[in-house]
């Protein structure tokens, strides 16, 4: 049979387009700064994960340039063969110190950490217990594992306890996985309670702290520091691509964990290591977090101000405890309309609609940034108020 080998490419893409499910890429013509140029238009950026605005910090830029000048543009290999540079080791040591854990390991991306490590931690005869609202990259990591899976209701410790009790009878290893900060609602997993329950049953704990790293805990040390349980979570996974302003995934925990992880994670073993410029910028990011506490403080000052003002206007900001600020508007159509109107007013904020969130909880998700000035926030607030009234949300 002579087949048309590639017809599906166009057909499937067209199908996505017809259902309005394709990605329409917005193009940044500036850096990822609070005032960015998106698709040719100067806008206030309210949807980047660059929480501390570190991607534009002079020390990070210098770190990248210096490392590139000294060690070149690429690393030449995977970490396991000839691609581990002294710089990579230095980042890992500094990171462990920052996280107050015994050891740490850098992965190529956060997704590579989840997809590479989770399937190694559990196998056949084991069970992964997961919060129902966990993020996609955790879910894929979980799918790659041969273990059974059970989900518990979002942050419901009673239900987690019940699942543990059932799992205890039947399984060899138990791994509890949760997001640290949940990316849609901005609420925080009760990690102290999860660790306590895990200890009762001899279960492992794994937290994806992508949105907590650099944001919560003293000086942005993440969820372990937030609850004062540094080193007690078995795997603290995070990323350098959000608040740290660079790119790369990370895990922090015991030396045993790190030894196990880099010998077993296929994503780590089979991808090229970070270029020196990336490692140089990562190192500078840790430096900045340790020596310039104003960025984390600005982020939280901005967050508190923005939320307080939104609430006083009558907006519902849900359960958020972090700079992720959902502005809940109701149905999906309204959220998309508000997002479009905001863009007309030069504000870039994404709508989050059903089925990502409940049908009546569609929202604009505002990501607060330390680099926003009071004037920027007031400009955004004035537009939210004006358009909120126009659309009869408030």
């Amino acid at each position: 049979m002579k087949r048309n080998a590639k017809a599906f490419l166009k057909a499937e893409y067209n199908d996505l387009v017809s259902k309005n499910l394709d990605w329409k890429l917005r193009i940044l013509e500036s850096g990822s700064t609070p005032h960015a140029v998106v698709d040719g238009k100067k806008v206030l950026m309210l949807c980047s994960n660059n929480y501390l605005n570190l991607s534009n910090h002079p020390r990070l830029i210098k770190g990248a340039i210096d490392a590139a000048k000294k060690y070149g543009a690429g690393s030449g290999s995977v970490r396991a063969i000839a691609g581990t540079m002294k710089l990579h080791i230095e980042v890992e040591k500094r990171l462990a110190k920052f996280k107050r854990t015994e050891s740490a390991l850098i992965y190529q991306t956060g997704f590579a950490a989840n997809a590479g490590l989770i399937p190694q931690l559990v196998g056949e005869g084991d069970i992964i217990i997961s919060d129902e609202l966990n993020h996609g990259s955790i879910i894929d990591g979980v799918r790659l594992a041969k273990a059974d899976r059970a989900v518990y209701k979002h942050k419901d410790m009673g239900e987690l306890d019940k699942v543990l009790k059932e799992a205890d009878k039947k399984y060899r290893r138990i791994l509890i996985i949760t997001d640290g900060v949940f990316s849609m609602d901005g609420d925080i997993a009760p990690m102290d309670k999860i660790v306590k329950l895990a200890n009762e049953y001899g279960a492992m704990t794994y937290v994806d702290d992508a949105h907590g790293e650099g944001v919560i805990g003293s000086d942005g040390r993440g969820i372990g520091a937030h609850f004062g349980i540094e080193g007690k979570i078995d795997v603290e996974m995070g990323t350098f691509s959000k608040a740290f302003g660079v790119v790369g995934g990370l895990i922090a925990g015991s030396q045993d964990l790190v030894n196990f992880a880099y010998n077993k994670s296929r994503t780590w073993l089979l991808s090229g290591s970070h270029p020196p410029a990336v490692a140089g910028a990562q190192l500078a990011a840790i430096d900045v977090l340790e020596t310039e506490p104003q960025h984390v403080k600005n982020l939280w000052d901005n967050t508190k101000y923005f939320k307080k003002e939104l609430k006083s206007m009558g907006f519902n900001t849900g359960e958020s405890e972090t700079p992720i600020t959902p502005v809940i508007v109701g149905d999906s159509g309204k959220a998309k309309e508000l997002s479009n109107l905001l863009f007309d007013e030069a504000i870039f904020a994404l709508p989050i609609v059903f089925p990502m969130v409940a049908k009546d909880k569609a929202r604009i998700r505002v990501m607060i940034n330390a680099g926003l000035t009071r004037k920027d926030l007031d400009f955004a607030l004035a537009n939210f108020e004006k358009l909120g009234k126009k659309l009869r949300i408030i």
Partner: protein
Amino acid sequence: MSSKIGFVVNPIAGMGGKVGLKGTDGVLKEAIALGAKPVAPEKAKETLKEYFSNYSTKDEVQWFTCSGAMGADELKKSGVKNIEIIYNIFDRGTLPEDTRNACKKLLEKNVDLILFCGGDGTAKDIFEIVDKKIPILGIPAGVKMHSGVFGITTSATAKMLHEFVNKTLTIGDVEIMDLDEELYRKGEWNIRLFGIAQGIVEPTYVQVGKTVYESVSDDAIKDELAEHVMDEMEKSSDSLFLLGPGGTIDYIVRKMGLDNTLLGIDAVYNKKLIAKDVNEEGILNLLKNYPKVKVILSPIGAQGFILGRGNLQLSPKVIKKIDVDNIIVVSTPSKLSSTPFIRVDTGDKKLDRIFIKKEFMMVVIGYRLSRVIKIQTNNF
């Protein structure tokens, strides 16, 4: 494109309830003599009012209905002008035949959905005609509503109608239950699974990109459940598997290439069907030859019963022999979204207490994926 909705009211549904008759089948005169007043027309009116005031503005709907009390009256009162009468009842009382005849006419009109107002009896009458050809949605108005076709309240039903018209709900299997009313009035509880109809259900979504979710069909989920059950059978190849009734398990067993019964209990050993539609005695005989047994059950009907509705063959004696821990419950997530509990009503207080003590059960909702669901015993 506009939707074609068939609308059928069973004006006498629910009348037996308020006067303690546990149903209206065959006892309408008695109910009226006891002072029963019509219930269904009011429920139909409430639902339509809710629908037209909250949801209908952008919905394009063509209505097809019966004359007078079987639909047209309530639609007219709600201000609907464009109604096509497909069946006339003139000025006499209504009978189950009227519901069935009206449904035949609605099928001829190729309606997309039948919205009806009634109880389990009405659902059964409709199902006898439409089978799985089109989905049905019930406005709850009967004395008994064990079938899975009903909205929880009149306002929930109005919302489901709107979401069906706008295609944000999908079509899935729902059970039609049948209680022998005559036996029931004598104090005997005999509720059977009558058939599997098409209802409208909440779709299941999976995340395919960072902010992109896609709905997964009910059949895709059932494929996963089938794979899970086949794995279990391989792992426990020395066990006899008893498979309960219902749409979900029916799908799983057919997927395995076995010719099972939809409504009864089948026995599978080594992936082969060794007994079909077995009764209590048959099961007890099997248990003598097979020391290791697992039972696969799925919630049946509207309230999430896994035991005591539609599978009385799994008697307390049988369950005690098999042991509660050897029950595996499987369900599609969409089904669980309408049944927050797993319910048991074994008819044996001691056995019910074992379930109460367990408090919750792990319910398999996908391939190697489960979640805990609370157990409730019969408290209706």
